[in-house]
């Protein structure tokens, strides 16, 4: 081994603590890259492959009842490759041991055998045999939640008729990779199952013989999606079509998209922060090392080593630190990936989600990580190349300080000289102080960005389940009913109050913009489900006009007072002019609200209800559930408590993971920056501090000079970081924004305080380590060495 390389190894060993602190920051960046790229690519590639293999449809539409004779017409739409007409209905589940009734979405399997689109993948057992009306296959998540296997059974109320079913198989469907109950956001596999039954059975149960109420289309390559949707809508309109939608609005796929978007954002935002800080730290540490080894550099040059040769020596040191960081990041990334794969296993139901540990991701992260280290080194090493040996071997001139603005300010304040030293040092190296501050503030920002999600979800839950939705449960009818049905609902055992709910699919037009949504009918004075302005916390009655969800209003570019046009999808294509009377902020879906009577008038019918929001007497809940399981005309009951619980559980799990990850990586950054800054300050100021100790300054007083500067920077960094964190959180909220849901931007004071405390603690911890070195400083030998 060459002598210079030996020096290199010894340097790394000598600087191990600083090297490790830098390597840890770099490792954070590599970890996030490996994890995010890995998650993103695995998820998108697995999804694409699965969609391909299972022939996942491109367009869907529901209808009230469309004749089978319509199918050839749909197939004739240019661009349509395949049509599958089917029956899709909801039914109340009666599961032994489960008090609250569950909900099943039941989809028909063609009599010819298996579905051709959205193919099922059998995990266990077999598909039902046509003609066997009591056979059913269920989705795997539901089966796992109940430990169901082929041969097990349960009861279901199909259109008011209770039937005992036998499970013949467990399946996966590309339509339910992420399976959420209608109206929900989070999986609730205990109470929500998807099942497939032979078409004849369902047709008989729901009076749909020779008809269908759901259709999915596969398109040819290059087909015009919008045109296909338009044609399909026209064809289905007379049969109560609710408006075609494509993959973007397909619930399961939309959630996967959201997940991919999050990873995409993570991979764009986080690694650059880590890498920039790594480059800065490498630059700082190497710059100091080169300053200390100035004479050695001069000597090497005098001995005949070239400038580039010596520069390469120091670059190798940076590479060494980089390599440690990359390996640490790889190991961390590998474990994090496995953790994510496990979480995905719980959330997403793929037949073969393999978390891809792609060598290319590891190679890419390594080359980016090492580049960051080299970049930082490059700036520090530039000086080595140009330094002349004669100059290098002479002692460096003392650092020049000048009197500046600071001194004029200081003259007024008359600080102690030790304070003056701190201020002058910051004034002398403003860039370094600024970078240190920025680095530390990034760590505070990351914690805020990690923690705020808990605040925001709390807010979301509060608005969704306390302020807006105050009902205990939602009872959904199998078909629209007149409002008088609410009297019957109130007569059900345990129901204390009932209010109706109605909604109609419609397309809203405003100028060139349009959007298909559902308009909800409202009765003034409804107390159980309210339309609520999330920000100002007041109710917004629609009056004679229409109230739009804020994101919908943005989509339509409509403001209060504007006139928009409404076309009901289940009626003719008349466009009704309606004035926008308000906007509200809800976090789920894109909604619009009108007065119930006004809505009924526009739809030319009597006011109807599709569901009842009810208050329940908890002590009679069991009776109510029994009544509902046997009540014809009631499709399902959704307990808000269950919705909230599944929401809470899911959120708690993923929020805890991300909060932990964010806090740890943020602390790593804080420690990396503060520790290295303090070590370098200590190295630069060792003589100064030792002379003060000799002059009789106590350890505390001397530490004040060294750590005072850092604490000043940390004190500046924390508010800056909290502000940056707010910005990051706002960016995240904006990126989460989708048609399915949005997240409120809310950061509590506790979150800010927690972020500040974590950064302060990490800083204080690293400062204490350095403080111990001050305490152990050998005064005599420090004074005897020439700087």
């Amino acid at each position, binding site marked *: 081994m060459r002598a210079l390389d030996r020096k290199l190894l010894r340097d790394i060993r000598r600087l191990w603590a600083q090297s490790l602190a830098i390597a840890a920051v770099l490792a954070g960046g590599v970890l996030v890259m490996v994890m995010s790229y890995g998650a993103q690519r695995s998820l998108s590639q697995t999804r694409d492959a699965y969609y391909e293999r299972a022939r996942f449809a491109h367009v869907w539409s529901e209808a009230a009842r469309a004749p089978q004779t319509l199918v050839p017409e749909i197939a004739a739409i240019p661009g349509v490759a395949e049509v599958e007409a089917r029956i899709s209905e909801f039914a109340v589940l009666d599961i032994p041991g489960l008090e609250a009734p569950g909900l099943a979405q039941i989809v028909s399997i063609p009599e010819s055998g298996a579905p051709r689109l959205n193919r099922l993948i059998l995990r266990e057992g077999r598909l039902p045999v046509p003609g066997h009306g009591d056979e059913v296959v269920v989705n795997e998540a539901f089966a796992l939640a109940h430990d169901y296997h082929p041969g097990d059974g349960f009861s279901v109320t199909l259109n008011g008729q209770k039937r005992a079913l036998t499970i013949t198989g467990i399946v996966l469907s590309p339509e339910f990779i992420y399976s959420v109950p209608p109206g929900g956001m989070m999986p609730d596999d205990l109470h929500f199952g998807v099942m497939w039954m032979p078409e004849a059975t369902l047709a008989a149960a729901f009076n749909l013989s020779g008809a269908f109420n759901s259709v999915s289309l596969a398109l040819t390559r290059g087909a015009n999606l919008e045109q296909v949707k338009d044609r399909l809508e026209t064809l289905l309109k007379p049969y109560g079509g609710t408006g075609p939608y494509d993959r973007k609005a397909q619930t399961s796929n939309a959630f996967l998209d959201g997940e991919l978007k999050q990873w995409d954002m993570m991979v764009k935002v986080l690694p650059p922060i880590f890498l920039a800080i790594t480059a800065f730290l490498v630059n700082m540490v190497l710059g100091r090392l080169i300053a200390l080894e100035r004479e050695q550099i001069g000597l090497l040059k005098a001995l005949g080593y070239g400038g580039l040769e010596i520069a390469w020596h120091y670059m190798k040191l940076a590479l060494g630190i980089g390599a440690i960081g990359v390996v640490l990041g790889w190991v961390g990334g590998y474990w994090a990936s496995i953790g994510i794969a496990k979480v995905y296993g719980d959330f997403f139901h793929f037949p073969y989600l393999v978390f891809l540990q792609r060598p290319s991701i590891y190679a890419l992260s390594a080359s980016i990580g090492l580049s960051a280290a080299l970049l930082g080194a490059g700036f520090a090493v530039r000086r080595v190349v140009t330094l002349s040996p004669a100059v290098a071997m002479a002692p460096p001139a003392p*650092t020049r*300080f000048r009197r500046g603005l600071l001194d004029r300010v200081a003259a007024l304040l008359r600080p102690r*000289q030790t304070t003056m*030293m701190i201020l002058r040092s910051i004034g*002398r190296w403003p860039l370094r102080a600024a970078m240190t501050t920025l680095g530390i503030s990034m760590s505070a920002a990351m914690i805020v960005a990690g923690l705020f999600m808990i605040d925001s979800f709390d807010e979301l839950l509060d608005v969704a389940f306390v302020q807006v939705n105050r009902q205990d449960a939602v009872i959904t009818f199998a078909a629209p009913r007149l409002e008088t049905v609410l009297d019957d609902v109130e007569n059900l055992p345990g129901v204390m109050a009932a209010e109706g709910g109605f909604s109609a699919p419609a397309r809203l037009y405003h100028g060139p913009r349009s959007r298909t949504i559902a308009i909800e009918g409202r009765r003034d004075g409804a107390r159980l489900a309210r339309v609520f302005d999330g920000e100002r916390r007041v109710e917004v009655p629609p009056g004679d006009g229409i109230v739009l969800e804020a994101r919908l209003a943005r989509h339509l570019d409509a403001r209060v007072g504007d006139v928009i046009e409404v076309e009901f999808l289940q009626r003719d294509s008349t466009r009704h002019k309606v004035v926008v009377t308000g906007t509200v902020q809800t976090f789920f879906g894109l909604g619009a609200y009108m007065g119930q009577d006004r809505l009924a008038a526009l739809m030319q019918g009597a006011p109807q209800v599709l569901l009842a929001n009810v208050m329940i007497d908890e002590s009679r809940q069991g009776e109510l559930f029994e009544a509902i399981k046997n009540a014809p005309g009631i499709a399902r009951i959704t307990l808000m408590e269950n919705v909230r619980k599944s929401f809470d559980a899911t959120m708690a799990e993923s929020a805890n993971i991300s909060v932990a990850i964010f806090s740890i990586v943020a602390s790593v950054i804080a420690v990396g920056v503060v520790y290295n800054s303090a070590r370098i300050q200590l190295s630069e100021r060792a003589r100064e501090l030792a*002379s*003060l100790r000799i002059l009789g300054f106590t350890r505390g007083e001397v530490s004040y000079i060294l750590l005072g500067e850092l604490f000043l920077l940390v004190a500046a960094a924390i508010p800056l970081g909290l502000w940056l964190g707010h910005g990051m959180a706002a960016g995240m909220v904006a990126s989460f924004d989708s048609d399915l849901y949005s997240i409120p931007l809310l950061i509590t004071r506790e979150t800010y305080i927690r972020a500040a405390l974590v950064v302060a603690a990490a800083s204080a911890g690293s400062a204490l380590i350095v403080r111990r070195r001050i305490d152990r400083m050998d005064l*005599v030998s420090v*004074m005897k060495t020439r700087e």
Partner: protein
Amino acid sequence: MATRVFHTEGITKVYHTGAVEVHALRGVNAELFMGEFTVLLGASGSGKSTLLNILGGLDRATSGRAWFRDMELTAMNERALTRYRRDHVGFVFQFYNLVPSLTARENVALVTEVAKNPMRPEEALERVGLDHRLDHFPAELSGGEQQRVAIARAIAKRPEVLLCDEPTGALDSNTGVQVLDALDRINREMGTTTVIITHNAGIRKMAHRVIRFADGNIAGVSVNERRIGAREIEW
């Protein structure tokens, strides 16, 4: 009989550097007296700096005892030694050790701010002939001027003893004489007990008392009947 400021009994100091034991002091018994200007002479490694550091509270003896007046230095803990340095001792080193980010005046103020009965920084600098360079940073001063700032900083708290380890070691003869002159005047005017380590035998003629070191022990003590001024030294 002059009052003793320092005295030691059987001071030894052993440094362990790797496997090697270096006996820097081998049982030194020394006495230094109030108001005297003492010069410690000797070759490198003869132990003079080690003794000075122990007397100044910078280092600890391996065995033996040392007193400042009636305070036993060898019995003090770290905190007490810091206190001792702060209240009683002024140091001057070969490499000035000024704080580069503070001006001459501020470097002195560094000490006067924590001392019990200091002189004004301006007065201290005037005593070393630098009253015209008050607001200059170390980088703007010559070596001799920097060393004189260091002396001003050392005396500004009116220490009882001034310990100087090769104060002229890094200076040429002209500036060296200026520095020694400043030390001599302070010794005369303020009566500060002054101990100087030097390789330069010519300086011994300035001293009241000269202590010669060899091999970690005192080889001889002599008292000058007649002292010469700094400017008369043959460099």
